[in-house]
């Protein structure tokens, strides 16, 4: 029980069980037209953009940074791809869609490099540096779309979120592939350790010869690329680019996912698996709000309550309190590591 509480699995499990109680068919998955359908599949499908954004955020946070521009990059990437497709002479061809996607990714990489430049090169505090793009970038997206919602009708582009690979939605496949790739790269190379070293003690890392600047630079570019892919998924889902609302506040959900996953905002040690759990938890929470039928006007309050509950349960002080209560209930006090009372202190001898 204690282990379960320490790991961030239980909120997800609890939410899923709540859904099951409300709707017994919640876990049902069916195959239709070569694609899987069901509430669980929806959670994965709808959660893919957040999971990707949170993955990029994890590495940024591990280097002691933060990236507030994630949501904006989502909007920009959708805007660039859709505008390119809509304004091209051949708006339905796969080639046009591919070029648009390529443009969106390239621009996102450039924006990530800009963030990296401000943080790594100029030494501006990450929260300020990325705030610049967070606010200015929405303007950029509106400039691209000319303030309009751009709708596209391109089968290839729609396929990003609409098609399936071996019955699994492509969004889920892509997100899973990126997670697997990052897990592999950080484990098989020294990147993971060096990212952590830079996050834990930047100056010591520099003096040990770690190329901190390029590592920091890399993670911001990677975070922007993740956000861009998320943006393509989101705009493909609705076949439109909404510069004002696409990815709005996504960076905050991404940060929340990272924190629920157990990565400290102070940087250093991080957990990719934890972030994935965090993202799925947040998405499941959103789904729960609909499935349990929580009125929309209190949905944010409900979300806030769940988040507070999760953090309280993870807080060391609360955990210590619960341990002590459990021990008292068990009526068999083992040598206490944290308790001071004189009666337990005497029992150790």
């Amino acid at each position, binding site marked *: 029980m204690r282990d379960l509480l320490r790991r961030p699995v239980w909120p997800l499990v609890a939410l899923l069980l709540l859904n099951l109680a409300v709707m017994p068919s919640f876990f049902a998955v069916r195959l239709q037209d070569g694609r899987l359908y069901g509430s669980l599949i929806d959670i994965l499908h709808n959660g893919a953009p957040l999971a990707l954004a949170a993955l990029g955020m994890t590495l940024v946070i591990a280097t002691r940074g933060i990236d507030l521009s994630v949501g904006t990059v989502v909007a920009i990437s959708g805007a660039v791809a859709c505008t390119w497709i809509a304004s091209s002479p051949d708006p339905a061809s796969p080639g046009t869609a591919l070029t648009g996607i390529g443009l969106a990714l390239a621009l996102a990489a450039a924006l990530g490099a800009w963030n990296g430049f401000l943080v790594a090169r100029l030494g501006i505090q990450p929260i300020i540096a990325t705030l610049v793009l967070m606010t200015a970038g929405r303007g950029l997206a509106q400039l691209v779309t000319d303030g309009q919602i751009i709708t596209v009708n391109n089968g290839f582009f729609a396929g990003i979120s609409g098609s399936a690979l071996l019955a699994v939605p492509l969004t889920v496949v892509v997100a899973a592939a990126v997670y697997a790739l990052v897990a592999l790269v950080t484990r098989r190379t*020294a990147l993971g350790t060096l990212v952590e*070293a830079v996050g834990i003690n930047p100056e010591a*890392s520099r003096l040990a*010869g770690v190329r901190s600047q390029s590592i920091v630079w890399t993670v911001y570019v990677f975070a922007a690329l993740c956000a861009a892919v998320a943006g393509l998924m989101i705009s493909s889902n609705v076949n439109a680019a909404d510069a004002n609302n696409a990815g709005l506040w996504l960076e905050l959900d991404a940060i929340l996912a990272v924190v629920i996953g157990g990565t400290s905002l102070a940087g250093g040690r991080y957990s990719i698996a934890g972030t994935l759990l965090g993202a799925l938890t947040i998405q499941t929470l959103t789904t729960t709000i609909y499935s349990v039928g929580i009125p929309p006007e209190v949905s944010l309050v409900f979300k806030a309550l769940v988040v507070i509950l999760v953090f309280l349960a993870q807080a060391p002080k609360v955990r210590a309190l619960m341990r002590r209560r459990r021990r008292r209930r068990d009526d068999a006090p083992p040598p206490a590591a944290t308790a*001071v009372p004189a009666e337990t202190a005497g029992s150790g001898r």
Partner: protein
Amino acid sequence: MDRSALVEMTGISVAFGPVQALQSVDLRLHPGEVHALMGENGAGKSTLIKTLTGVHPVDAGEIRVRGEPVAFAGPAAAQAAGISTVYQEVNLCPNLSVGENLLLGREPRRAGRIDWRGVRRRAAEVLGRLHLDVDPSSPLGAHSIALQQLVAIARAVEVEARVLVLDEPTSSLDASEVAELFRVVRRLRESGVAILFVSHFIEQVFEISDRMTVLRNGRLVGEYATADISRRQLVSAMVGRELEVLEQLDRAPAEPAADAEPPVLAATGLGRRGAIEPVDLAVRPGEVVGLAGLLGSGRTELARLLFGADRADTGELTVGGRPVRLRTPRAAIDAGIAFSPEDRKAEGVVADLSVRANIVLAMQASRGWMRRIPRRKQDELARRWIELLDIRPADPDALLGNLSGGNQQKVLLARWLITQPRLLILDEPTRGIDVGAKAQIQALVAEQAREGTAVVFISAELDEVVRLSDRVLVLRDRRPVAQLAGEDVELDRVMELIATGGGARA
């Protein structure tokens, strides 16, 4: 029970996870006595202090104050019981005035507002009692570290402290400042305060303490009256083994033929405005060059220039005869230079990574992130160096932040030695670490030099510099004063040069 003891700790045990930090340790403090707590790094001194001051709860054992058993829920509870602590680093606010710092959080109030006149009066009173001549309204940051330390002590005793814990109060003070501190400590002793004094400086302990308790590996070795114990006995009680490691390191001077070889590193007119005036320095293979000088003399600044940690704005550097520009530490590392910085915690230790990861960090960094050192190789390196340098605990998976200062230093040395540098720059590698580890590190430096590594050695302890170095560059007020070689490398000469700058000689 001892009637006269003010504080009596018996059978104190504390464990951090699987690590038993203290095992059944006793400590008694008497009013009007200075009691020294001695032990190597990792012996459990800090843990014991922290149980006394309410920072750590005890797992077993009893603390009595004036005969009454107590269980402190936190530092505030300990303070309320009359136990005050002054830590090594001054924990005050440099931007506030001396008086505000003295009374922070307990300012005299009048009608709910702070009575500033009362603050000044009370502060002057407290300072006067310790015979400290300071203006209470001057900003704390304007004063020397030594004086800030004394203000911290004054703050600690302002609350009618019956017990004062001084944790390494002298580590950043010079001789006259230490004398001033001791004057205050003696005054407090006369007024009946029980003082617990922790220091690595054996001479100071013998000068100030009446009684001492020695810990080793978390266990009590014994309690001694200072008058009854010799320095040698004390050291062997702390180290727990015969002192072969401490025997004089007889270093044969570097081969005279070394002149023929090009220096590993040669600096001509190397300097940086505001940090260090231009310096000429050459280090040959197998040679130990000491940098001697007081704190702030420019010794650290010079070392940082040699490593590219800061950029020089004048002068030239050659490595192995070829001119180089060290714009980053990375460039210096690629040229075969290693640097163990003075401020271990801020610039060396990656606390939340394992000992293994810390040991291979520099090697991994120079290979680049793509070419990870295979896990088996990492394990092998970590195991070998843990054994070679006697790093404790001998666990490659332990987080470096959980090791004691001396063991952290050894890990940092291992980090560089596995890269097989041609030049090893060591800035205060033995500061704040215990006798045993110190001797091991000195022996290691001598051995590296014997194997042909060039070494630049910096230490505030001049006898250490003199003992290890073939040549000594003396620095004073950010300027090179003289270079001594051969017979001239002698403690008195170095001290005289530091004191007078060589001007008063002849």
